[in-house]
């Protein structure tokens, strides 16, 4: 029998009931969902006395989209994530999610995720149930999670279970790998951009295990000798430049079994990016003036997350499981700039002058949270989950510091810091009414309190599944989601400087309502077809008011924002083939999404930037033999929308002799740009083919080495990222000629990665 690992069907633990495909396993062995969802198979296994799963192929009912109640839900295994060829060969969770229908990737190469017409900040990223804020490295070029430490990813687009809250559009629930209780296992891999090392094993055999993963980019190390050569040459001209970028992430999972007291799990995650730019210019002593001078410029940008969590999971009774988690999350984004000019005549100290300034802007959030989650299974056809969580937020939405002795820069130390309290209660029940009808009903109550303002919101969730036969079913669902913190971007690409801002008395929480209906078909669980239609409304979306980007003004961040609403409607089609030497999926998404803000676009509706009408994805993996695997993915989608000032008009004529005006020719542009509508230009269709090939070598002692060769953008189609407005010197009939130029960033990029598993 030829088993495939590519599809997300190979699961050793599962949420919901688990069905066993292997002949030796009971066909419908039920495990309480949360027992295993947070990475504790042992408790479940001990209590349920299941067979040792080992390497058996177990197909979970959760993957059977006909029988389970979930809609818009996909599970991804690390194997599947790795099978999606990516830039520089970096296995990338977000890039794998971008392949799903209904998900727009934003600007090419970035780790944007716009799910079913939502915004990039509306995705709830959980690491073992604990939220983190930032999932991007290098402006989104790489996602900030080391796939080697991932055991399983659940991705929800709609009909969210009531235990999830805080974001409108999707939930990405990453379950990390815990270490093997008996043997040490590890992975080392090195690619063109980074290297990572993951190791796990027993600390106390069969009682305590650990898993640690570290990944670091090495672009800065590669750049060092290049910069040294360049600077050696530049030194003759009195110049020196330095540039460095690095990202690091660290994962930790320590699991301790306490017998009847359950398990204790310590989870740690830290991801950080640093950009450093330095330059020095100096003039040796001038013969004429006898003075010398030196200019120094510095720039630092740093952003990242830290997460620490301790989770105690205990079976209270045979059918009741409790999990208690205390966690701390910190997100920081900081940019600092500094300059210094020193000049003087060496022989006359009093002639020396020193002008300097330093500026720093930033944004930070610290969360302290406590969660209590219960799973009660009164009967095999009923499961009830309920719980409570409280989060104490420490917000620093806008930090601005500057000092200097230059009169351009005044000494400023403005750091708006305040607290917010978030509390939620939830309960949902999953039941099977009869052979045909099953469903899930839940209710979540969320409360957010800050600056004396309190917002309480009910979030009902319901999904119903009517199973016509084991092969096909029809589902319908509704979910309301509420979000109290959102990230507002003033640029088109995901930058660390994009601020996370909480709701306050000025802006109400974001609320979304999503209705879905779908049909599901499976053929022996090998072919799965799902077709879902959905409609979503979003209220309370925040955008910068026109001309009030975060970088532009000293006004309070609260004053710069304006709120509006959004709608999105679409259809997602997914066809998956899960077994055989050739596996993969084909996805198609059709979508319309619009926005309406009273203070933007003259109050009229406008399409969202990522209103990608059609999106078509193919991802295939072919296991040619035991040693060779070929992967390919192809995406085609309608281009993004951007705003272009396609028309112009003249400055105010001199309708009065004292009308202020610029002297002729002193402005870059002779006319004023006119924008008839926001997002008025659609970029050409996006399409890209990525290829990858893996060569496996199995070592006698059980190790495995893998050479991966990836070709990103195999036919080098230059997808435009941004459009530049270009005023040329060219004039015709006395008028300036203006052009728009598209800039494409990523041509064909081959890469190679070596991985050794032991």
């Amino acid at each position, binding site marked *: 029998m030829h088993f495939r690992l590519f599809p997300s069907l190979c699961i050793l633990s599962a949420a919901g009931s688990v069905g066993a495909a292997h002949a030796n396993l009971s066909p419908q062995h039920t495990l309480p969902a949360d027992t295993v969802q947070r990475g504790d198979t042992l408790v479940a296994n001990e209590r349920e006395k299941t067979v040792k799963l080992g390497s058996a192929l177990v197909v979970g009912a959760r993957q059977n989209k006909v029988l389970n109640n979930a809609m818009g839900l996909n599970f991804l295994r690390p194997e599947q994530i790795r099978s999606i060829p990516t830039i520089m060969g970096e296995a990338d969770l977000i890039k794998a999610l971008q392949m799903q229908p209904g998900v727009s990737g934003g600007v090419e190469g970035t780790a944007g995720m716009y799910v079913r017409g939502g915004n990039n900040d509306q995705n709830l990223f959980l690491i073992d149930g604990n939220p983190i804020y930032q999932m991007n490295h290098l402006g989104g070029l790489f996602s900030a999670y080391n796939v080697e430490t991932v055991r399983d990813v659940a991705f929800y687009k709609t009909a969210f279970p009531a235990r999830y809250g805080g974001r409108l559009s999707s939930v990405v629930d990453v379950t990390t790998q815990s270490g093997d209780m008996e043997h040490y296992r590890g992975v080392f891999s090195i690619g063109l951009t980074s290297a990572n090392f993951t190791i796990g094993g027993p600390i106390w055999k069969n009682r305590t295990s650990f898993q640690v993963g570290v990944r670091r980019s090495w672009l800065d190390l590669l750049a060092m000798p290049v910069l040294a050569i360049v600077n050696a040459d530049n030194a003759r001209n009195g110049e020196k430049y330095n*540039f460095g*970028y690095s990202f690091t992430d660290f994962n930790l999972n320590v699991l301790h079994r306490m017998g009847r007291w359950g398990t204790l799990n310590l989870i740690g995650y830290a991801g950080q990016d640093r950009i450093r*730019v330095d330059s020095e*210019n100096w003039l040796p002593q001038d013969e004429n003036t006898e*003075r010398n*001078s030196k200019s120094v*410029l510095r*720039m630092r940008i740093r952003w990242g997350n830290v997460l620490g969590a301790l989770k105690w999971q205990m079976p209270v009774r045979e059918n009741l499981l409790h999990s208690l988690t205390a966690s701390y999350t910190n997100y920081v984004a900081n*940019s600092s700039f500094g300059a210094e000019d020193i*000049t003087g005549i060496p022989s006359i100290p009093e*002639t020396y*002058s020193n*002008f300097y300034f330093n*500026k720093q802007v930033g944004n930070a959030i610290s969360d302290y949270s406590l969660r209590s989650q219960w799973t009660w299974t009164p009967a095999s056809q009923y499961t009830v989950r309920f719980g409570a969580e409280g989060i104490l937020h420490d917000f620093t939405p806008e930090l601005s510091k500057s000092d200097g002795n230059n*009169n*351009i820069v005044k000494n*400023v130390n403005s750091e708006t810091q305040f607290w917010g309290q978030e509390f939620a209660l939830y309960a949902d029940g999953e039941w099977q009414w009869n052979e045909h009808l099953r469903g899930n009903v839940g209710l979540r109550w969320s409360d957010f309190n800050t600056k004396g303002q309190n917002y309480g919101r009910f979030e009902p969730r319901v999904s119903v599944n009517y199973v016509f036969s084991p092969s096909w079913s029809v589902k319908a669902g509704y979910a309301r989601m509420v979000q109290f913190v959102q990230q507002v971007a*003033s*640029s*088109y*690409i995901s930058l660390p400087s994009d601020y996370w801002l909480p709701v306050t008395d000025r802006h109400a929480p974001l609320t979304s309502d999503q209705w879905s209906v779908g049909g599901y078909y499976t053929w022996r669980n090998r072919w799965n077809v799902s077709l879902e239609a959905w409609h979503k409304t979003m209220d309370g979306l925040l955008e910068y008011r*026109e*001309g009030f980007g975060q*970088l532009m*003004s*000293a006004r309070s961040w609260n004053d710069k924002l304006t709120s509006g609403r959004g709608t999105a409607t679409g259809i997602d089609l997914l066809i998956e083939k899960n077994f055989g030497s050739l596996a993969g999926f084909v996805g198609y998404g059709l979508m319309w999404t619009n926005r309406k803000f009273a203070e933007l676009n003259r109050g009229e509706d406008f399409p969202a930037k990522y209103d990608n009408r059609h999106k078509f994805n193919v991802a295939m993996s072919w296991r040619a033999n035991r040693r060779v695997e070929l992967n390919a993915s192809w995406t085609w989608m309608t281009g993004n929308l*951007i705003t*272009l*000032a396609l*028309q*112009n*008009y*003249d400055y*105010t*004529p001199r*309708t*009065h*002799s004292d*009308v*202020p005006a610029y*002297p002729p020719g*002193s402005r870059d*542009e002779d006319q004023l*740009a*006119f*924008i*008839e509508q*926001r997002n008025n230009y659609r970029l050409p269709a996006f399409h890209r083919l990525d290829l990858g090939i893996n060569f496996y070598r199995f070592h006698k002692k059980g190790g495995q080495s893998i050479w991966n060769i990836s070709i990103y953008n195999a036919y080098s189609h230059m997808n435009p990222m*941004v*459009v*530049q*407005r270009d005023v040329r010197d060219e004039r*015709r*009939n006395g008028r*300036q000629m203006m052009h*728009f*130029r*598209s*800039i494409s*960033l990523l041509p064909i990029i081959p890469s190679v990665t070596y991985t050794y598993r032991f």
Partner: protein
Amino acid sequence: MTRIYKKQALRLRQSFGLWSCLLLMAAWGWSSCTEDLELQKDAPHPVLVLNSVVAPGAPVKVGVQRTVYIPNNDIPRPAVNKANVILTVNGEQQPPLVWNVDEGLYVSAYEPKSGDRIAVNIAEGGDSASAEVTVPQVVPIDTMTLSYIYYGRFKDLSMSTGNSECRFNITFRDRAGEKNYYFLRVLDEKERPIALNLTDEDVFRDAFAGLNGIDEASAIDGSAGAAFSDELFDGKEYTLRVGELFYSEGRTSRWEPNWRTVQLYAVSEDYYKYLHRIFNDGDLSISENLAKVGLAEPVSFASNVKGGAGILGAFQMVSKKVYIVSNNKNNTLEFGQPAPRRPNEWWNNNGESTVYAHPKQ
């Protein structure tokens, strides 16, 4: 923006501005591929543009045009001379405005007064547009003093653009109980606007916050005047401090004798937004440049025209004119009359401004 100011600002920007950061972040990519964008062949429907700025003491004149699709920018723009332009003042319709071929404007005989509510409706080719504005009250300059500031011999190597400054201290009283908006400019003897140093004036402070102010160019333009509001001094007397920077070799160096005219405008709210965008933000602001390179949302120019583009603004302006003879060793500026002078002959100020004692040299 004076050439030297702009040149230095550009140099500074290129050396270390935000763009060095962004360009370095994506240096290899930015050069990878650029391509002229194919715009749709069908030009968007041009909208009516209504432009008029009115003030007491002069008849209302209205410019009417249509927006032009950028690829057609070189095509001559025919005058929109068949429009129906209606002026309404305080709810009373005035006789239709008449096309004046010499000025290329529609002209009315009506001269607005303080507090008038002016409405203009235009209709042409099946399209129509309209706008309304209230003429603001005049805000007189109570006093104006000038001083000379010497920053240091080597200041020119710093981030600033001069080592000496002619500082204008302009005092006026804001009208209480209402939001007021202003525009300030200083003209030279040929009535050309001069570049202003606005860095010490708090009403422009927000222009220097955040990443703005990383160099002068990205902070605020001010090369032909600047707009501000009464947010910091609502209903109070306020002294505005702006300056004209110049280079000198030291305390002994002289200011070139010249006329300066300070003009303080009280402007309507929408016109203030329009002026702010054009005069304060300038060509080199971070927001402007981010939008030009496609990294940020371009922003429309402020407009109060419904159904079209352009601006209907209103203002009242007062001015003070002064002839500045020279800076002297007491760090003051000297004033006089523009009359022929012999070497070493100086005049006391008997003009419109504060009188300074003049030490004979």
